[in-house]
């Protein structure tokens, strides 16, 4: 009897599934010089879920992604207003930028392995953050490559240049490199758009798996991809966030007519 009650008590609080917010932006305005690329964007990225950002070219998807790990800092004349938070901390004020970028990893559209060996590519991040021991690095390199499903393909050539890999392999290497610093959030900017369908499928599978460990935010032009791998989707148009919600809901019952037009392919 007592036991039953206890059990109930244990289950009860978790019944309403409210997902925790990992990152969030509030009233975000972003300017490139005079040009406003993001207009009053407010959006939450729930922890351990895959959020897809969709919208026509030039609507500000990459810009938003780069605001999340402050890669926009590298752009001359870029100005950010509003709040971007990671676990509730303002990333533009309360988190050291290099720490932020370790916690919020990024994979780019074009694979960009460094011109060094496969091993050194993966070890670059951990070394940056102070891990020097060979044994420790060996473990990290192997684990990261395994997690990115490329270990079997490269384990015999770790000392060879990463530039000798195929495009799809290079992109998985870049994913492994991002994983090697144990990020909490992964940003993927059209990371499959330069790849063949088989490589794309491999990476999509990875992303689905990642949701159990990481918070994933991905930009994609491919709506089927958004449907396949994401649980949340946000639709952007001309720098504004038009609509955000559960992926299935947004694709099947969009609330805004512009979203409806886009997901049914009536926008470019």
């Amino acid at each position: 009897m007592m036991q039953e009650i206890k059990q109930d008590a244990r289950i009860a609080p978790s019944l309403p599934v409210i997902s925790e917010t990992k990152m969030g932006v509030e009233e975000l305005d972003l300017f490139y010089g005079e040009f406003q690329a993001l207009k009053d964007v407010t959006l939450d990225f729930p922890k351990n879920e895959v959020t897809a950002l969709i919208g026509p070219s030039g609507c500000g998807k990459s810009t938003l992604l780069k605001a999340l790990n402050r890669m926009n800092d590298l752009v001359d004349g870029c100005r950010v207003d509003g709040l971007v938070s990671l676990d509730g901390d303002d990333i533009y004020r309360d988190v050291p930028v290099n720490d932020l970028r370790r916690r919020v990893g990024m994979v780019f559209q074009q694979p960009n392995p460094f011109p060094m060996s496969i091993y050194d590519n993966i070890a670059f991040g951990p070394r940056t953050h102070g891990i020097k021991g060979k044994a420790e690095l060996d473990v990290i390199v192997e684990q990261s490559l395994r997690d990115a499903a490329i270990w079997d393909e490269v384990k015999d050539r770790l000392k060879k240049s990463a530039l000798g890999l195929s495009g799809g392999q290079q992109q998985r290497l870049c994913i492994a490199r991002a994983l090697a610093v144990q990020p909490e959030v992964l940003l993927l900017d059209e990371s499959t758009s330069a790849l063949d369908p088989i490589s794309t499928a491999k990476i999509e599978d990875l992303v689905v798996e990642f949701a159990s460990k990481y918070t994933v935010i991905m930009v994609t032009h491919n709506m089927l991809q958004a449907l396949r791998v994401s649980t949340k989707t946000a639709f952007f148009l001309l720098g504004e966030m038009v609509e955000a919600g559960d992926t299935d809901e947004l694709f099947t019952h969009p609330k805004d007519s512009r979203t409806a037009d886009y997901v049914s392919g009536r926008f470019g």
Partner: protein
Amino acid sequence: MTLKILRALVYVGAILTALVLAGIVGYILINGIPHLKPSLFEWTYTSENVSLMPALVDTILMALLALVLAVPTGVGAAIYLVEYARSTSRFVRVVRMTAETLQGIPSIIYGLFGLLFFTTMLGWGLSLMSGACTLAIMVLPVVMRTTEEALLAVPESYKQGGFALGAGRVRTIFRCVLPSALPGIVGGVLLALGRCVGEVAALLFTAGTVAQIPDFGGQGIFALFDSCRTLAVHMYVLASEGLHMDEAYATAVVLLILVVILNTGANFAAKRLKRGM
């Protein structure tokens, strides 16, 4: 039709260049090699043996010293201009324009400047030090410009990759950007080296023509202020005196070999450096 003509022109150009080059090298070798006598390599120069050994050592010292001064400065300046300064800033534009202008100035002007500044004003006299400083200023724009070009040619994505992993600016530049730029930088250093080894005019004014190895053993660091003559100056002196044309050709052969060795060495060093990075 035009394509055919163009292709023919390309071939003609290539063949002409090769022929001219082979002609010069061949001419020097034919005239020089028969006169490469052991006496040319004696440690001390006398007017009988016309030894080129002191000049050979001086050349190496002079070029190394000039490069030691110019390469870190030039590479550092280029890194600053490309990676740190805002590309639109006025300062960058002024520095770039100045460097470009300096690159086009005849070396004799650098010689005059060296004579007035290092030799006279600083009182270093005609010396290894005055000469090397003058050469360093002369090749600085070369090193700077080539390094800049090499850095600009490195894909932006390497830098982004470094930053995105939380690496700071210094680490990103030294680990992700510089290794790729290294071949270009080495190219610039070789160009600079070539100019140092081949320079005569600027050195006549600043380093003088004394055919001896600076006496580091006896004077220590002060030997830097001894006058010395490089191989190119040595050749100039021999040829202008007109008494030792054969030895001048032999010297040219040695100079040629020296340049080849230095180039190979620099390339080899670059490869090692790149692997170590």
